[in-house]
């Protein structure tokens, strides 16, 4: 940690006096409460933050979902019972957004389902492929690993703008295609292509993260297993199917659920990329919540809260799945 050392000594020099000052009241508390109960003092700031910014909002969210009107202060909002939920769920057919009362919500739900399916599918697929390649006998593994990880560091707005620039009517993609004799498109004007590219940039930006996790999972598989397979003259494909995949399955599961959870919450890069357009072709559910609650006129906090309660429900299910998968991974 050679980079960290000089930084650490600087921060130590600055923080030591501060910490010493804190030590005094802490010692007295310790005498008062005893070591065991002092643990609560250590926990207090964290619990306060969680309480205020995680748990309380959940309760308030439900409160908002049950009220109407455009006022932001809860006390000024008239209660509407399940009105917001009824409005959201009012559909003749859930498969056709056009038949719904809140058609924008259901379009966003459809878009999100498609988006998550495609994005997670492609991303995990390519992440697995890349991890397998990186796990193989290649030189400069560290360099290549960093290459794939690089886009993960970029902010969503930057990712969106980089690709928006490439996909312009006069952008480099059309330049290359035109030069090679293919047809050029105005990519972001077409609903289908805009959706495709939204999935693409999302995969591009996040794939490296999952590649690393899968790579770690692959490297945890003991080498003698592969030795044994080689001695049996197994083909690469057979090795993969019979040995690699089953041993990697726990990690895959974790990665899959994690990707799903993050995928459902996608907002940043797509919002900066297409703004939900053209029309509502790339409108995802979090953007719907943002638009209804903070972008529209009038600001419908109740409806936005109700929609986010529904999304939260889906996420709770997925998170529970993730925890179950992690526990399995830890023991299996």
């Amino acid at each position, binding site marked *: 940690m050679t980079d960290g050392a000089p930084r650490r000594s600087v921060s130590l020099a600055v923080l030591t006096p501060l910490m010493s000052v804190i030590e005094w009241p802490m010692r007295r508390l310790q005498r008062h409460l005893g070591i065991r109960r002092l643990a609560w003092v250590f926990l207090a700031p964290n619990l306060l933050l969680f309480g205020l910014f995680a748990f309380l909002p959940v309760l308030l969210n439900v409160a908002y979902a049950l009220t109407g009107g*455009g006022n932001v202060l809860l006390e000024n909002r008239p209660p509407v019972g399940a009105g917001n939920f009824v409005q959201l769920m009012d559909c003749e057919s859930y498969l056709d957004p*056009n038949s719904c009362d809140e058609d924008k919500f259901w379009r966003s739900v459809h878009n999100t389902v498609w988006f998550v399916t495609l994005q997670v599918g492609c991303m995990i697929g390519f992440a697995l492929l890349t991890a397998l390649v990186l796990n193989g006998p290649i030189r400069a593994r560290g360099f290549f690993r960093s290459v794939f990880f690089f886009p993960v560091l970029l902010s969503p707005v930057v990712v969106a703008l980089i690709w928006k620039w490439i996909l312009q009517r006069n952008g480099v993609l059309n330049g290359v295609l035109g030069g090679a004799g293919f047809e050029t498109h105005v990519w972001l004007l077409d609903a289908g292509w805009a959706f495709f590219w939204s999935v693409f940039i999302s995969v591009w930006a996040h794939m490296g993260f999952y590649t690393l996790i899968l790579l770690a999972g692959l490297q945890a598989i003991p080498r003698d297993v592969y030795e044994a397979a080689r001695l049996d003259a197994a083909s690469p494909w057979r090795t993969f199917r019979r040995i690699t995949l089953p041993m990697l399955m726990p990690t895959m599961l974790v990665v899959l659920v994690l990707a799903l959870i993050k995928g459902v919450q996608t907002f940043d890069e797509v919002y900066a990329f297409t703004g939900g*357009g*053209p029309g*509502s072709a790339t409108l995802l559910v979090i953007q719907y919540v943002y638009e209804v609650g903070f972008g529209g006129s009038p600001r419908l906090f109740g409806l936005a809260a109700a929609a986010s309660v529904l999304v939260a429900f889906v996420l709770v299910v997925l998170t529970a799945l993730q925890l179950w998968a992690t526990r399995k991974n830890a023991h299996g």
Partner: protein
Amino acid sequence: MNHKTIRGAAGASTLLLALGGASGAAHAQELRFTCSSDGNECEVMDDMLDRLEAENDGLTVAVDIVPYQAILETLPVQLAAGTGPDIAKVTDLGGLSQYYLDLAPYVDTDYWEASFGDFLSWYRADADDTGIYGMHSQLTITGAFANTTLFEQAEVAIPADDASWEEWAEAAREVAEKTGTPFPMAMDRSGHRIAGPAIGNGARLFDDEGNAILVDEGFTDFVEQFVGWHEDGTMAPEVWGTSGGTTYQDAAEEFINGEIVYYYSGSWQTRRMDDSIGDDFDWKVTGTPCGPAACSGMPGGAGVVGIKATEHPEAVAKVIDFFAEEDNYAELAARTLNIPAHAAVAENGVDFDTESANTKAALRAWSAQVGKLSPVAFAYQGYGRLNRAMFNITVERISQALTGELSVDEAMARATDDLAKADAEAGQ
């Protein structure tokens, strides 16, 4: 101590208190002024305020220049949260009326009524309100810019003043073809922009009882035409097509680069056109083409309002009154190249601060359009309760029709629903 000394001491201390009080009043009053420029309005106002600050010791006005989107989206949230500025230049005149400071106690109301007349009603909450809430600093009107050099090169005659949309569309297409210009026409992505042509086509927007209906035959008809132009390539598709939600998008840069023949926007762009085009090509303001019902654009503009929650109402009123003085208003209009809303200033004519013949002609053309405004347009602009919602609904639903997500009829039906929902919520 005897009585005299005590009285003297009391008198002295009273005097001291009074002086202290006075210097307390002359205490630094810093006002925050959130402002968005179409051209240079905020910069000019900031400059003019230096004079006011020089005359009033302790008064400073910090002009905070923000993008237009911030005024549309962020300012309302700030005002609702109570963290807004003292003064703001707003365009959603009626929609934010609940936050305005009534200036009537601090200004000469007769002068204001005589100078600004009907425009004052735009800032009022309802018909019974008689307060004075804002000074209309910038009267704008929607209409079109035409690249006359391209018409010349294509040898196509510029349509007459009372030409219809079809005639303009045809002429623009011909010019674009002959000169190799990418786009014949373009219109800003805004519900406010499309309102004028819709009204010209017979849209009434309100029913007989004065309730907002937005969609009727005239409106739907124009929307169909609009969608048709996107399909056949008459209208530049990226303007309405690549943004989502209710994001505002204009096509000024494309027009300035000579990529558009006929650009429907509004008078606030005049300064920008003047500065950016220079003498690259000749251009002309042509107003709104005629429909069966009218040849009307939409009036609009911005005004300077005081915020009710301010800690310095008198100072705020002083600042706004400063700009309402005839000479100052005339100066503001002349330097920002905006059409005046002040009756006396408009009558005397404004000596616009530009050497460009194009701009002078443009501003004259804009002023001539004011008379053609339909009363529906005036009412729509003043309908603060819901007009912002109606603009947003218009943009969203028409965008869906443009991409083929919904048919025009479906989109219009949805728009009617959306309006009903917004109406229900806004009423609470």
